[in-house]
């Protein structure tokens, strides 16, 4: 699977400024990094949305996904975002629909390549997601967009947490977390605390402590990213409640 243009450690802005604000701001470096984050989180939901809602063919959906983010960067789509009116992801989906409507109205097809700056995106992997969604039966495009958005958010958070743990002395904590919560495949039982303790040669208490720490850190990273990706504090809180069923601190 190909990676986004910058490694996971570099995807997120280091400041706590909202990515949404940075994407619409005047600092070119902050803008570029904010766009990297937005592409990393939203490209897959956007691509699947085009495939499912607009019934676009693979090539056309790939082109328009690239085109969408290129236009958003060049033409300042996100400057028009008003947090009072909608959640950011709803606004972004609306921009995408608007782009398609324009393209169709003008009977203008984008040439493959189209002059847009391409980033490396794993469209083949997204096609696998689409096949899985089809296998699940009819799926509302909005629900699929939301599901893929959460998946992207969590995937980036796991990568960020892994990077943080490897840089610090927390490798074992991440390994216990990965073995317990990330590795097991569907239908396979997750290892018990005792099994994890035996596998890592740790006391059971240590296993529960490591797991508690890693899960707490994972939630912290997700919430940080979520805050950065939200247009307002109200949106952030509402999204956090939906994600974890609780108000964020």
């Amino acid at each position, binding site marked *: *699977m190909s*990676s*986004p243009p910058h490694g*996971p450690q570099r995807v997120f802005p280091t400041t706590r400024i909202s990515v949404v604000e940075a994407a619409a701001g005047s600092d070119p470096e902050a803008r570029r990094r904010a766009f990297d984050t937005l592409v990393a989180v939203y490209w897959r939901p956007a691509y699947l949305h085009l495939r499912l809602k607009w019934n676009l063919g693979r090539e056309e959906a790939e082109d328009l996904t690239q085109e969408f983010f290129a236009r958003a960067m060049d033409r300042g789509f996100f400057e028009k975002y008003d947090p009072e009116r909608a959640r950011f992801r709803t606004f972004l989906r609306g921009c995408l629909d608007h782009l398609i409507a324009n393209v169709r109205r003008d009977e203008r097809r984008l040439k493959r390549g189209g002059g847009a700056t391409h980033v490396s995106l794993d469209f083949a*992997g997204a096609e696998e*997601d689409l096949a*899985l969604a089809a296998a699940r039966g009819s799926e509302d495009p909005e629900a699929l967009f939301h*599901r893929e958005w*959460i*998946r992207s958010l*969590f*995937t*980036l958070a*796991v*990568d960020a947490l892994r990077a943080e743990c490897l840089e610090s002395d927390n490798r074992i904590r991440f390994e216990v977390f990965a073995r317990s*919560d*990330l590795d*097991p*495949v*569907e239908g396979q039982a*997750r290892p018990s*605390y*005792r099994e994890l303790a035996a596998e890592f040669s740790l006391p*059971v*208490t240590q296993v*529960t*402590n490591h*797991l*508690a*720490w890693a*899960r*707490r850190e*994972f*939630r912290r990273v*997700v919430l940080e990213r979520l805050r950065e990706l939200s247009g307002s504090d109200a949106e952030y809180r509402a999204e956090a409640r939906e*994600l*974890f*069923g*609780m108000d964020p*601190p």
Partner: protein
Amino acid sequence: MRRLPDATVAHLRRVADWPELPGDRYEVLEAIGQGGMGTVYRARDRVLDREVALKVLRPEVAGPEWTSRLEREARVLARLEHPGIVPVHDVGALADGRIYYLMKLIRGQRLDEFARTVTLSEILRAFLRICEAVGFAHAHGVVHRDLKPSNIMLGAFGEVMVLDWGIARVAGAVEAEPPSGTPARAAAEGEDTAPGTVLGTPGFMAPEQATGAVHLVDERTDVFALGAILRSVVNARPEDNPIPRPLVAIWDRAMAQDPAARYASVGDLSAEVTRFLDGLPVHSYREPALERVARLYGKYQTAILLVLAYLTMRLLFLVLRGL
């Protein structure tokens, strides 16, 4: 970047907030409720092979000061042996600092659900049992502070259980002499909730609690909540006949803004409800003459009808004999 499968995403959403108890004695099974103060889980005690309830307080209620305070209070609560008070088995702090309680797992119906299916007198009898449990706690210096219908369960045989003593206040070790003529102030000493800290549930929270005036919190704070509960459950009942005005007067007085204007104790409140149930006048309500006649008729209906029947027969007998 490895794509996370659906099952992993769902699992992460579930466990990101999952409590990990120290050791492996308890297995946390599922979340069974969420309230303002925290989340309740069903857990299994592997040693005793029984299910228990685990309540994990919100992260805001964390830290060494809270832990020591709640541990101290749990010790007091553990001594509150009453059939209407849920037993606390243990209290402690999770690895992430959140405070947890292990309690008996109660199965039954919540008071608000119960009230939607029964008559007024059944509601009032259940209410009196709630008052008994709360009054018992007050007698031991404990103020609940978060009484509400969802914190009260009723078992299959009508037994009442008051839950969630997690934010209860316990009198300090050095109890000051209460001012003459006022109830013992459960929280007069041991002021360990910072002024301005607001814990409780809007709608059932007394003004002194809602404004964070912790020095004013005492058993009359629970009297206020009980008045709010009474109002809530009486209004929830399925019968659509008018609510008796003495009952309204009872909860109005229990919910007075000024604690001094409320019933001085839960015992006084339950005595009023008992008087109402027995068809006696309640002290909080000045009864108009017509209502008094109606109440007396309702209370002595059988006797009045028997006397009237006797007098009618007697009259008929005299009339017939005179013919």
